[in-house]
């Protein structure tokens, strides 16, 4: 039975019609009567005392409505921006959290930190007002270098050594013992370069306050409107949740950077209430560079102990993670529970010990960015495994095979707190090797050499933990929120369906894939399904989208709601057909009585539910609308094999990716076209990190890669035509058997590229990004 719009079909995206015709409705497209405009005054200094602020000229500027400072917000009882995950140090103490006022009060700690907001009748008036502010800064020496941050000036009064926590995971003694018996130890020092997210749509907010009802409405570019509302209500103290509605309309990309609760929307919604006028803000690209949470930024030493036959005995990892100047919403969890827990990779390494020290510097806050911790972990594991293969003279694919967790080993409990439910790593590697024509690599390398070029091949057999997350596991590890999801199926009188989900699409295509699920399960025509999301006024409390969770968690909630619809539909049909409920089957949109020719269509049952003439009202409520919450019992574990082949011109240092193969196991797939698109986007970002992108602060803490002149985004001509394929081991614990595909490309690809570059050059390591200059210098060595 093939449902052309059901699960597994490459249905074209419903969303695209509006996106490619310019009729999408983004936050900045939404206006309100009497709207004012906010412009944030941002610190030009990386670290300074703010000794005073003279706003008189700003207030006298034509069209300026108000100037608000951090002190104004504090005086009104507005609280700090919280970090939602408490990580504990080795000694059991909770992480040390510095104060984080939305708008700086008496000191600034990174370039771009807002120290005032100017509200104007027009954007120009607000800009002129901001220009007229006179801030009295007293500059202090900035802490910029991560490696020396622990011994540098103390940034926050309550944070000695600039350290928020010193965390560990795994068995230190067992790991040390493994190293003591090692035949060979490989070690590697790795810098995971800082990235700036650069979603195509800059962050924006429109705050409104209705004096009649006391209701606040915030339109903003959030991946997670309920979390935004929770934080603004419970921590920032804008208003109780019931008087605060957060709407994320169309959102143009997030990559993690729009999960967090930022200063700007906080100030905007507060100011709207204060002024009793709508307030609009949209970031300029320069502001996005400065004030969106950045990603990655680790310095790591990794060591792998091996037996003579290449069996992994132990892995030891010590990482310094840069938090930037303050703890962003989920910053603490990224280099710990989303990083250290992934150090087993696809391998049966019996002993693992990870230490992570997270430090403050006078730079923009760092938080989750596509993959969030897992790309960093994969980079460590796959670079050290490749290094060991080269040092021991074992084929890199073969060394991995010797250490893979076998299909018969599942469920497999790693030494770093996770239990993998299923996988077949050998299968994805074998398929990738075939696509990459690994057997022919020698001949291609010889041909390149004959032409004066250097050719290299690199592998990355990654794993990730997705489908965030089992609430009780996450909460026991420090999460301040549950991580379930909600799904609602509202069947209309005529049998069309409205789905409401608490997950959020900012590129993921919920309107298409969730409609496919309804089409498949209820037999409702695809075009008769509407999917609503991104509105706390429409959906119950849920947790939004990140960590490749929409389908694995949100889709599972939807399935539970669908099951309730079908169960109720069967009761209604049984009554109408005068049969026993157990005799009624439902398939392809039709309720049938077993061993009879009696049947009812789904719309007939829906109609009966709302026009209950022939209906068991004494036993059953009218209506056909069901909702379900789903809390996953485990993470999902997408995994795969990426193989990158490069050719380098030693004269110029230019790296040409001649082929890139990604074979991923995402479990079952609802829409293969969308999955392929997600993989392509992820690969572009992972390759971007390896070759192009770098967030750079100079020694005084100035962001010198703060525009597209200096921060290189990957473009089509930087990338090859990808070979993307899949293998399938269905997730064992969710009803769709899905694992999630949103981050895999960015998680697996970076290590594959750098393994290929180092292989081509015959060197142990090359720093990222491997720009032509960096590669040329390495080639000269």
């Amino acid at each position: 039975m093939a449902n052309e719009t059901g699960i597994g079909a490459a249905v074209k995206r419903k969303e695209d019609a509006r996106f490619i015709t310019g009729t999408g409705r983004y936050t900045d497209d939404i206006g309100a009567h009497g709207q004012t405009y906010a412009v944030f005054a941002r610190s030009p200094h990386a670290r300074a005392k703010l000794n005073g602020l003279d706003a008189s000229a700003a207030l006298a500027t034509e069209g300026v409505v108000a100037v608000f400072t951090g002190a104004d917000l504090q005086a009104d009882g507005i609280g700090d921006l919280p970090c939602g995950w408490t990580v504990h140090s080795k000694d059991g103490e909770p992480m040390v959290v510095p104060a984080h006022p939305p708008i700086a009060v008496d000191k600034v700690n990174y370039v771009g930190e807002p120290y005032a907001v100017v509200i104007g009748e027009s954007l120009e008036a607000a800009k002129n007002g901001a220009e007229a502010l006179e801030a009295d800064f007293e500059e202090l020496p900035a802490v910029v270098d991560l490696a020396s941050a622990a011994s540098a000036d103390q940034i926050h009064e309550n944070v000695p050594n600039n350290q928020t926590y010193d965390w560990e995971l795994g068995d230190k003694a067992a790991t040390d013992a493994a190293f003591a018996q090692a035949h060979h130890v490989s070690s590697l020092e790795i810098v995971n370069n800082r990235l700036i997210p650069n979603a195509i749509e800059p962050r924006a907010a429109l705050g409104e306050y209705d004096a009649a009802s006391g209701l606040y409405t915030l339109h903003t570019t959030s991946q997670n409107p309920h979390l935004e509302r929770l934080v603004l209500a419970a921590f920032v103290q804008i208003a109780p949740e019931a008087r605060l509605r957060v709407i994320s309309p169309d959102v143009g990309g997030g990559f993690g950077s729009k999960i967090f609760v930022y200063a700007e929307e906080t100030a905007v919604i507060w100011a709207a209430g204060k002024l009793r006028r709508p307030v609009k803000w949209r970031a300029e690209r320069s502001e996005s560079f400065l004030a969106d949470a950045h990603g990655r930024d680790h310095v790591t030493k990794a060591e792998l102990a091996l037996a003579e036959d290449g069996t992994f005995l132990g892995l030891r990892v010590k990482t310094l993670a840069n938090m930037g100047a303050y703890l962003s919403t989920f910053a603490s969890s990224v280099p710990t529970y989303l990083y250290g827990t992934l150090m087993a990779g696809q391998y049966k390494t019996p002993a693992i010990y990870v230490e992570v020290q997270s430090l403050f510097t006078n730079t923009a806050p760092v938080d989750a960015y596509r993959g969030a911790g897992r790309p960093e972990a994969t980079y460590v594991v796959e670079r050290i495994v490749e290094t060991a293969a080269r040092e021991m003279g074992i084929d890199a694919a073969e060394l991995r095979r010797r250490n893979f967790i076998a299909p018969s080993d599942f469920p497999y409990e790693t030494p770093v707190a996770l239990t993998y439910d299923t996988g077949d790593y050998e299968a994805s590697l074998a398929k990738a090797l075939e696509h990459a024509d690994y057997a022919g690599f020698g001949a291609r390398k010889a041909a390149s050499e004959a032409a004066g070029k250097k050719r290299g091949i690199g592998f990355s057999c990654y794993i990730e933990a997705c489908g965030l997350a089992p609430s009780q596991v996450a909460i026991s590890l420090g999460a301040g929120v549950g991580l379930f999801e909600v799904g609602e199926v509202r069947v209309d009188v005529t049998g069309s369906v409205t789905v409401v989900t608490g997950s959020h699409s900012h590129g993921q295509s919920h309107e298409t894939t969730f409609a496919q699920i309804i089409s498949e399960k209820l037999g409702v025509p695809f075009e008769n399904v509407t999917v609503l999301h991104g509105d706390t006024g429409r959906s119950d409390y849920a947790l939004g989208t990140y960590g490749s969770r929409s389908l694995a968690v949100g889709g599972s909630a939807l399935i539970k709601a669908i099951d309730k619809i079908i169960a109720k539909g069967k009761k209604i049909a049984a009554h109408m057909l005068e049969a026993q409920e157990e005799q009624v089957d439902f398939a392809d949109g039709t309720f049938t009585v077993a061993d009879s020719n009696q049947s009812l269509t789904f719309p007939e049952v829906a109609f009966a539910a709302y026009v209950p003439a022939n209906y068991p009202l004494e036993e059953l409520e009218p209506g056909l609308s069901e909702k379900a919450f789903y809390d996953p019992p485990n993470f999902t574990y997408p995994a795969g094999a990426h193989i990158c082949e490069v050719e380098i011109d030693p004269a110029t240092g230019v790296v040409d990716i001649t082929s890139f193969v990604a074979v991923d196991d995402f479990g079952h797939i609802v829409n293969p076209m969308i999955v392929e698109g997600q993989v392509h986007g992820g690969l572009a970002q992972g390759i971007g990190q390896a070759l192009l992108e770098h967030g750079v602060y100079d020694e005084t803490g100035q962001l010198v890669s703060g525009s597209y002149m200096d921060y290189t985004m990957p473009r089509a001509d930087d990338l090859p035509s990808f070979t993307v394929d899949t293998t399938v081991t269905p997730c064992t614990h969710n009803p769709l058997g899905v694992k999630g595909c949103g981050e895999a490309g960015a998680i697996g690809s970076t290590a594959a590229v750098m393994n290929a570059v180092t292989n081509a050059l015959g060197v142990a390591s090359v720093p990222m990004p491997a720009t032509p200059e960096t590669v040329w210098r390495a080639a000269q060595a």
Partner: protein
Amino acid sequence: MEQSGEYTVSASRERVWEALNDPEVLERCVEGCRSMTVTGEGEFEAVVAAKVGPVKATFTAAIELQDVVAPESYRLQVGVKGGAAGFAKGSAAVQLAECSRDETRLTYHIEGSIGGKLAQIGSRLVQAAARKMAASFFERFAVDIGRSQGV
């Protein structure tokens, strides 16, 4: 940021020294200068409209003369505020050498740093912008000093 330069001016060292200490001359010669006022002994404030790449703003510079050895050398300590455009600060060491009675060689060495939007999007443009401003200054200065000498 560091930058050095050298210019030869057709005037005596005393004349060049005098001109370099005359706010009216400086106001005429600094491109985009809106005002140059004496704020104290050896202290000036300049308001200058300038452009570094895409960053265009009116900058207020507080200038202080230090280590003055008339008519040979001094050091300018400069702090520049550009509001939303950011800031610059640094010093310029200026030396005058007599080439002949009517010819003076001026050398300068600037050390400084920039911040805010100037650094964010102007970092790699600021060297060129500084060089251009210096060239423009000395071009005007040469003409100005020539005119005042009746050349």
